[in-house]
């Protein structure tokens, strides 16, 4: 077609753009926009679970705990290290005695200690830390130890465990880092029997039903280490304190916050295509709540609000592997996931899942034939551990039989669905 003819046809434009074309286009748009307004825009205003969190615990985990828990993911020779970033007037702390742990403190700080067998947990947003007794406190600690030992003899207690005595002190700083030797997936959480000892509420989440807190924080101190080749430092209670976040997250220390790892994990879940073979939803079917359930309790079906903190949600279309929406409860073991990603058929015979050697650094010092996990492993592991563990507080958890919607009663026919 030549140019002159094109021009003449363009002149016909208004003529040809007549009723039938207009009617067709308007009709298509009208029908299309009706469905969009009802099924795309309306639901989130109609159904509150699309936007409301499932519990205060979920909010605190994602918004308070994750950003302030730091992990060092590659640790040659030593275990994974968890460090809490403590901030004055923001982080809640508890100093709780146990059978093996007692505290001494200057008179001013004594009120913050939750004494042994005291039911009510005392919390504070003051920044206090725990250390081996120093200075004047050494004598007090000795006195306490003698006192406890004589008590024990009187009771003829047969346990030979040593009682540790630690000192509570005020480091007089705005922020600090504390090491968490346990550092698990599930955070310290209290829902009843607690008092916050502050004069006023410092943060909105301190008012919530139940709070996440850090227990008995010991300062994270490091010392340079030349004995090993690749690690330039190690944890040492007598060493130098970490100055600030910048130092903690610098390449030489190499810490990542749990939030960063979870976000990285979500990204890895996307780019590795995990979601083509694994669904991330416990459907409202008996087979699903059973597949994801524990030995004695079925998993509650996924609810819309479990997903609201995700950037990408992977409900999935196909189960070539099992569902992952409750994997944090069904498979909490880091060791298990390590050997599974390294060679899936080793832990799950008959699995068709590919191996993920790129989640590990190849290293001569392989543990049990498994490589040394790298950041990608930590990220995907942390991401998966959010699945099923954050619906309610651990003390109210479905795996303890405290399922809020009573899935077990429903599938056994004792309770009718509304």
């Amino acid at each position, binding site marked *: 077609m030549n140019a002159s003819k094109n021009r003449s046809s*363009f002149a016909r434009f208004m003529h040809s753009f007549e009723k039938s074309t207009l009617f067709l286009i308007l009709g298509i748009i009208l029908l299309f926009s009706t469905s969009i307004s009802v099924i795309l825009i309306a639901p989130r205003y109609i159904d509150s679970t699309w936007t409301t969190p499932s519990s205060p615990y979920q909010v605190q985990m994602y918004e308070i705990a994750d950003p302030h828990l730091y992990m060092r993911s590659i640790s040659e020779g030593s275990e994974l290290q968890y460090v809490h970033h403590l901030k004055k007037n923001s982080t809640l702390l508890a100093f709780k005695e146990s059978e093996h742990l007692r505290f001494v403190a200057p008179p001013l700080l004594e009120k913050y200690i939750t004494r042994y067998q005291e039911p009510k947990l005392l919390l504070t947003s003051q920044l206090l830390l725990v250390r081996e007794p120093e200075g004047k406190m050494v004598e007090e600690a000795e006195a306490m130890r003698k006192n406890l030992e004589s008590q024990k003899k009187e009771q003829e207690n047969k346990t030979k465990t040593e009682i540790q005595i630690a000192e509570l002190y005020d480091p007089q700083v705005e922020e600090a880092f504390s090491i968490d030797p346990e550092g698990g997936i599930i955070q310290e959480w209290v829902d009843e029997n607690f008092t916050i000892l502050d004069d006023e509420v410092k943060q909105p989440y301190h008012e919530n039903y139940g709070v996440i807190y850090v227990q008995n924080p010991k300062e994270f101190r490091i010392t340079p280490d030349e004995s090993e080749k690749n690690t330039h430092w190690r944890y040492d209670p007598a060493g130098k304190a970490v100055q600030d976040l910048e130092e903690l997250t610098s390449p030489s220390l190499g810490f990542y916050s749990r939030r960063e790892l979870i976000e990285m994990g979500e990204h890895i879940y996307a780019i590795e295509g995990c979601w083509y073979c694994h669904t991330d939803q416990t459907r409202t079917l008996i087979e699903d709540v059973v597949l994801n359930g524990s030995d004695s309790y079925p998993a509650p079906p*996924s609810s819309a609000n479990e997903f609201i903190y995700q950037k990408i949600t992977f409900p999935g*279309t196909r189960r070539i592997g099992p569902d992952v929406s409750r994997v944090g409860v069904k498979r909490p073991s880091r060791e298990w996931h390590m050997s599974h990603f390294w060679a899936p058929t080793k832990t799950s015979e008959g699995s068709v899942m590919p191996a993920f050697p790129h989640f590990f650094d190849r290293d001569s010092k392989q543990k049990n034939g498994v490589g040394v996990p790298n950041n990608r492993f930590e990220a995907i592991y942390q991401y998966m551990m959010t699945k099923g563990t954050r619906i309610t507080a651990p003390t109210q958890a479905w795996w303890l039989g405290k399922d809020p919607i009573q899935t077990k009663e429903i599938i056994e026919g004792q309770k009718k669905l509304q």
Partner: protein
Amino acid sequence: MTAYDDRPAKLFIYPSIFFMLIGMFVGVFLAFNSFIFPDYFSGEHIHFGRVRPVHVSTVTLSWLLSVDVGLMFYFVPRLCGISIWSAPLAFVGAGLWWCTLLLGTNSFPWGTNWGWEYAELPMWISWIPIKFFFGISWVFIAVNLFMTIFCRRFEKLYVSLWYCMGTLIWTTFTVFVGNFALDWLPGGMSKVNASWFYVHNLVGLIYTPMGLAIVYYFLPKLANIPIYSHRLSMIGFWSIAFIYAWIGTHHQIHGPMSQWLQTTSIVFSIWLFIPVWTVVHNFMATIQRDWRKYVESVPIRFLIMGVIFYLITCVQGPLMALRNVNEITSKTDWVIGHSHISLYGAFTFFAIAGIYQAVPVMSQKPLWSNKLAEWHFSLNLWGSLLFLLSLWIGGFLQGLMWANWADGSSYAEFHDNLMRLPFLQTIANTREWWILRGIGGLIILVGNFLFAINIYNTVVLKKALSPVQVE
């Protein structure tokens, strides 16, 4: 007689045939390397999760969408009686289209998956905004075709043109929602809902109308029989326009999606019987006037088999949306079978028929070998049947095995069922069906290889005839 500029159509159709072979080869590779010999070639860049999106986006975008666009560039001018509105615009569009697709669809092994179904293309590769360029090239195509329709010589709009206009409007919005707007929605179900809206509209409002437009144009053309009923085609079109956009949520039956939304999608899914049966009846009644044409012509065979597959898809689809059927079929291989019968069995068959008619006209040479074309059809048909039946049966049996966990009345019994038939065992029991699926896929691949040879030889080897002989 108007001289039509077919260069834009060729720019889309010829490369798409090449990408069909690539995409299907990757599919067969996956069937073997991930299911028959799991993880035989293993490693970061070649494992199932990284390669699957290469297969899916190559066959959906680089093959099916591209060839459909190419065929639109072929028949829209012919139905309007004028040449394409702007050939240069089409060249720019095609250039941008192929560059972004070539880069985008092959980047997944290096970890660029965006993470949403059918929208895996990355936003950026280095400094290249892949999704943006893809969107722009689509806009170029849409503007070009719309302007061709607006400037047309023939006053009456043939039904294929309605479908084209519908597609152009729907796709523009749907692609925008599924690829860009997702980022601005609140996290969780709002995003999931929009994503399924996109996924289903991609099939229902892009491939379906494009495929039907192709049949509406090529069936009367090839068989030389006018379409059976104009009124039926109107009912078919407007009911698709009304119903399809409502049913995306039926991918989430039993999922964490609001129940009223699930029910809405189920109701509309059932209504789908209306457009499907009217359209299928219209095609079948057309060919019924002279069934000999089916025997004589390979492209007509492709069209009619495609229509039959389309009918099967669209019987399956609404039924799979029913809660009790969904309980068995969902999350199994049945779903994979269903997606292949629609995109392969129906719409790819339509597109192949279109190519068989369009290439001789565009190149003004008759087809290189009819014998080869007949082999192509037979291999495709039997390969597809083996492929689809093994996925359906295997999937259905797997669904029944999972349903077996729900036998009983107490949690102890349910849990005991699971212990006796663990999830991994249900995977192991599906292996035989996976082997059959792989063989079926291989047969299809061989058939399409013959097709590519046939088209190549037609375009390159044969001498051109005068246009009169072709018409």
